[in-house]
């Protein structure tokens, strides 16, 4: 990755302009840990949705007892994973891909609102350093800093009711916590729908999922990046 403090990233690196002398190469974008993180998170969220809806009385496909057990264990496992993931993000500097940025945001938003209907190409070109477009980065930032903390925060408070049930009006506050947990959980479900749907835009659905399975994706590399990878990070280069 480029040193951003000394040299600001070139416009193409931010996905704003096509890169004239770049080579399209298949590069390892999602290392094993990131894929493991993504898919175990996806499976966990599915289990949490299923068991949560069961506990909430929406369906009766699972006993309440089993639903509570699964929901609790999977939620705690996911929280542990998030601890590791957060550590990984900050130690590797990968957290930067999730930082929201304004430049290019409008173009992407405009594309989803109009361009896509006219068959335009996606205005954002993935690069080695910026695999998320500005809208994606904004969405993930909101998810990670607002939505998820609300879910796991309310979930932990909910789970540990017995430690605070002696507070005044505890049953009322429990109801509040439960309702927050529930409301935000439904928003996460909405996000899942959106997330999957967006895979159908731009490339085929299959093409969209593939990088997260095999880890590699075709991105534009500058000659300098290419040379660097070939010398120092050959494991990233697939072809």
């Amino acid at each position, binding site marked *: 990755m480029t040193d951003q403090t000394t040299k600001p990233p070139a416009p193409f690196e931010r996905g704003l302009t096509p890169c004239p002398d770049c080579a399209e190469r298949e590069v390892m974008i999602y290392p094993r840990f990131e894929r493991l993180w993504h898919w175990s998170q996806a499976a966990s969220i599915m289990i949490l949705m299923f068991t949560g809806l069961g*506990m*909430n*009385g*929406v369906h*009766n496909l699972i*006993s*309440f*007892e089993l639903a*509570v*057990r699964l929901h*609790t*264990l999977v939620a705690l496992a996911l929280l542990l994973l998030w601890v590791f993931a957060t550590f990984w993000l900050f130690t590797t500097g990968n957290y930067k891909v999730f930082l929201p940025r304004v430049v290019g945001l409008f173009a992407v938003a405009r594309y*989803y609102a109009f361009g*896509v*209907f*006219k*068959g335009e*190409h996606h205005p954002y070109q993935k690069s080695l350093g910026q695999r998320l477009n500005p809208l994606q980065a904004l969405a993930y930032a909101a998810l990670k800093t607002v939505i998820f903390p609300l879910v796991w925060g309310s979930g932990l408070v909910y789970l540990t*009711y*017995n430690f605070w*049930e002696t507070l005044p009006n505890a*049953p*009322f506050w*429990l*109801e509040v916590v*439960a*309702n*927050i*947990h*529930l*409301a*935000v*959980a*439904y*928003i996460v*479900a*909405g*996000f899942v*729908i*959106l997330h999957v*749907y967006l895979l*159908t*835009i*731009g*490339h*085929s659905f299959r093409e969209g999922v593939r990088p997260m399975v095999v880890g590699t994706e075709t991105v534009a590399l500058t000659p300098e990046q290419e040379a660097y990878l070939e010398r120092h990070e050959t494991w990233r280069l697939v072809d």
Partner: protein
Amino acid sequence: MRRFGLRAAGLAAIIGLVGAFGAAAQDSAPQISESTTDHSKLKELQKDFASGPEVTEACLSCHTEAATQVKHSVHWKWEFENPSTGQLLGKSHVVNSFCGNVASNEPRCTSCHVGYGWTDMSEPPPAQDAAVDCLVCHDTSGQYAKLDSAAGHPPMEAKGKTITGADAWAVDLKKAAQSVGQPTRENCGSCHFYGGGGDNVKHGDLSSALYHPPLDVDVHMSEDGENFTCETCHHSDKHVFAGSRYDVQAMDLEGTGKPGMMRKDVATCESCHGNSPHDAFSVTGMKLNDHVDRVACQTCHIPSFARGGIATKTRWDWSTAGKMDEHGHPLHLNEYTQGDGKELHTYLATKGDFEYGENVVPYYAWFNGQVEYTATDQVIDPTQVVEINRIEGSPDDGRSRIWPFKRMEGRQAYDSGLNHLVYSNVWGPTTDTAYWTNFDWAKAIEAGMKAAGAEYSGEYGFVDTYMYWPITHMVAPAEDAVACRECHAQDGRMAGLAGVYMPGSNPTSRGALIGIAFFLAMASGVLLHTVIRVVARGGKGGMNHD
């Protein structure tokens, strides 16, 4: 003579040895009585007793303090001053929604007294020590009984009925006296299983099914389980027993006490099982342990009462009593068949209409252990259902838990002039006042009120009542415990119980609706986007742009 004596002694010794070896061959260890006394060897008991009190006198000749101890118990006094409410309760004072009251019905009601000859409720029980009935609790011969209307005396001839409703037989008091031992389920059950005048009529969780219950009816009392007697939990000290229905220990924070300590002064589940009885190393166990401070053990572990084939009376409507058949005889109907095949009265001219239930799902309420009775001098509101006893407790008092109850529905006489509950004289085969003999409420109530020394306006009516019976027996095996979903569901078992937020009871709560609104907005946005893409791109949409 002397030689013969020696020879006889030698022969006897040989026979004795052979006998001993024979016994040893059958049973490796010699049979040793658990008790240090074999009562069949006591000379005091080698006589044909003519009455219960005669047996008691023999008992007291060795057990000199026994009568004094018994006379300090609720079993004897039928009186209980509630230390929390100050109310004077006990069988000698309260009115219930079954046969009503003891006063004026003595020899019938006092047939279950732990004594002999208490025939007047306005007087204390008989003063003489020999009036204590030792055998009703300590007979283990199984053939001692009390007559159903002889103020506690046993049948000395095969005439009449016993307190369990069986045809009476002549009891062998000598055999009974020589058999005495620790009380068994049969001893306690002969009275307590038949409260209210029949098998399981009153409590709902105390029936003859508990003499030899299968494991699924009672894990503690079953011979296939722990084979507990009543006293295993209701431990006694100086003939006074742990456990009270008037002053219940609804929450036991002490648990088992210090390590190795046996708590024998309480009859709570916690005194054996502790305060975190579920597996603390599993999610389910931890969550269940989180429940125990708010939910009584009984609430989950007694999924229903009146199990084991014996129904309990769930409704008793006195107001319809008195109907005669076409021949002018008192009408009776047997239209309920309980699990063990026995037909039960659904109408009796003497008592009115009955309803029964088996495997009854309890009524649940916050309970701090206090039961407040509606005394006969309290003004009631006859337009409402009157609670004969009120279950005290709230989610906020820090000492209540959610308990299961049998809620008995009744319709019974009251003083419509003073708006008081009334005592009534129902039993009295030879009187002209008893309702069961004369079918005249005016006389029956007047006689009952007079016997109880209570004020009566002379006017009566009938009022709907509830009476609550805490459910604590018939603990089911763990796998039969109430499933989480029984409560954690819409219209679950605790629907409507105040002070509870029940997860899972409301899938359309405010938070859920807000969340669903967001979800639908996002999902319909996606749908709309798809439609526009499909329409705008003539079927190809943006699905594939390359």
